[in-house]
């Protein structure tokens, strides 16, 4: 296997990256430059690494991204992108926030490296949103319609007519899908 850095010498040092991501394969020469010749990591190096990481995280407590972004192309080098929601690179850089859920795809090039700096992983493994199952259970459908009808009443009572119309359409849709006559 060739060295990742010089792509010339044979890689003799194989490192597992600590924060997820890919492994690093280096030749002795390049490894020395990177100061990882002394593997395994000593306690001291470890604490240095951790404090570096901490310094990156610290300024973010104020909800700002800039402080970790310099590691990643910033300013002129940061590609100008715009999402259909109207959010662009400038706005993102300014407040460190996004405009809509699609922005995560639009800005992923510089967002993804930042994510791995702020979090302990890059992949969500917690609670999930259950996608409503398509099993046809008549009792459940009837119960659903009933609860929607209750909601409809509330919406009307509260004079939220826009929402009421949506609920009414939803009820009609469910009835139609399941061949229930309008009663």
């Amino acid at each position, binding site marked *: 296997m060739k060295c990742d850095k010089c792509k010339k010498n044979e890689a003799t040092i194989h490192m597992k990256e600590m924060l997820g991501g890919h492994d690093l394969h280096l030749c002795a020469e390049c490894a020395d430059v990177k100061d990882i010749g002394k593997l395994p990591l000593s306690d001291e190096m470890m604490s240095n690494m951790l404090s570096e990481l901490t310094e990156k995280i610290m300024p973010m407590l104020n909800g700002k991204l800039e402080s970790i972004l310099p590691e990643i192309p910033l300013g002129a080098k940061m590609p100008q992108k715009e999402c259909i929601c109207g959010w662009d690179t400038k706005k993102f850089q300014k407040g460190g*926030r*996004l405009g809509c859920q699609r922005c995560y795809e639009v800005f992923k090039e510089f967002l993804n490296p930042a994510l791995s700096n*702020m979090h302990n*992983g890059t992949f969500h*493994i917690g609670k999930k*949103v259950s996608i409503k199952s398509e099993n046809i259970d008549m009792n459940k459908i009837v119960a659903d319609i009933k609860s929607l009808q209750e909601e409809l009443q509330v919406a009307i009572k509260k004079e939220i007519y826009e929402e009421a119309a949506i609920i009414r359409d939803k009820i009609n849709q469910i009835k139609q899908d399941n061949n229930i006559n309008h009663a």
Partner: protein
Amino acid sequence: MLNKLLNQKVNWLADSGPDDDIAISSRIRLARNINDIPFPQCASHKQLTAVANKINLAVLNIEELKNNQGHFVLNKMTPLDKRILLERRLVSNECLNAKSSSEVIFSLDEKFSIIINEEDHLRLQAIKPGFQLDKVWDIINNFDDAIAKKVQYAFDAKLGFLTSCPTNIGTGMRASVMLHLPALVLTNKMKAIMNGAFKLGLVVRGFYGEGSDNLGNLFQVSNQSTLGEPEFEIISKLKKVINQIISQEKNARQYLLENDQNLILDNVGKSYGRLRHAYILTAKDAIDGLSFIRLGVDLGMFSNIDIHLVNNLFVTIQPGHLQKFAKKAMSSKHRNALRATLLREQFAILESGQI
């Protein structure tokens, strides 16, 4: 509605909970957004109104909130009224500059609240006295499920719950415990503790996150990372670290009692003297003083003072609550005088043993 709040004690401070000598309260908040609607700072007024309506309807399905609900539209409130909600930790700092469509819904016992259209469409928050993150998680998880039945959340298989700020994606969960750590402060251990917690991906912050980080020796420990670990793992890591901090605080108290008792006695004694006899007290003076009274109560130095009464005083001596008590806006000079009077009277009553 607000008067009702003011006339009741802050439940998460006034009730008992496990380990509540050192752990004051446990809180979890979840950040959620509705699918296919831009995040609040990028959405139109119409879209945000639709969000608020949807959530108001979804909340009707939550038993605990049905007949027992407080509800405010934030930009229709006076700054002082908003401050009251902040001081009771029902809303966050950002709500003080709320958008026109920002609302807060909360259970009247103040243990659960939903903030609509602040940084995210939805912020669910549950809070309980003492150290009980698992219980708080159960509560908030159920509320979250109930709402998810009625609204479709913005969710991505890889990135989890999508939030306005990338620091919250994944679980969208921030779990925190407020700790009272006077002995660790007195023995200069807080810096090491903070660094140690940082290394584990946790954050230790001073109370309310304002300037001075040892205001009242109160600290909030919370998770920083929200992506890459499941909720239970984040919570269990937090619990392990907090258990360690609690036992360190106990050790430090023991150490001081054995080796430097005068340092404790001096701090508690001076604080009592100050709160009992002062005529001018800033919020910081009062909170720092109450902190040592609290330590004194924990160590058995004041048999006639209930710790939950002291906890509640931490909130009632804050600027918003004071002005509501006085039923008028007050300059800081007048607030400092009123604060001192209230505390003098409170401790005079306690001294005479009438409570």
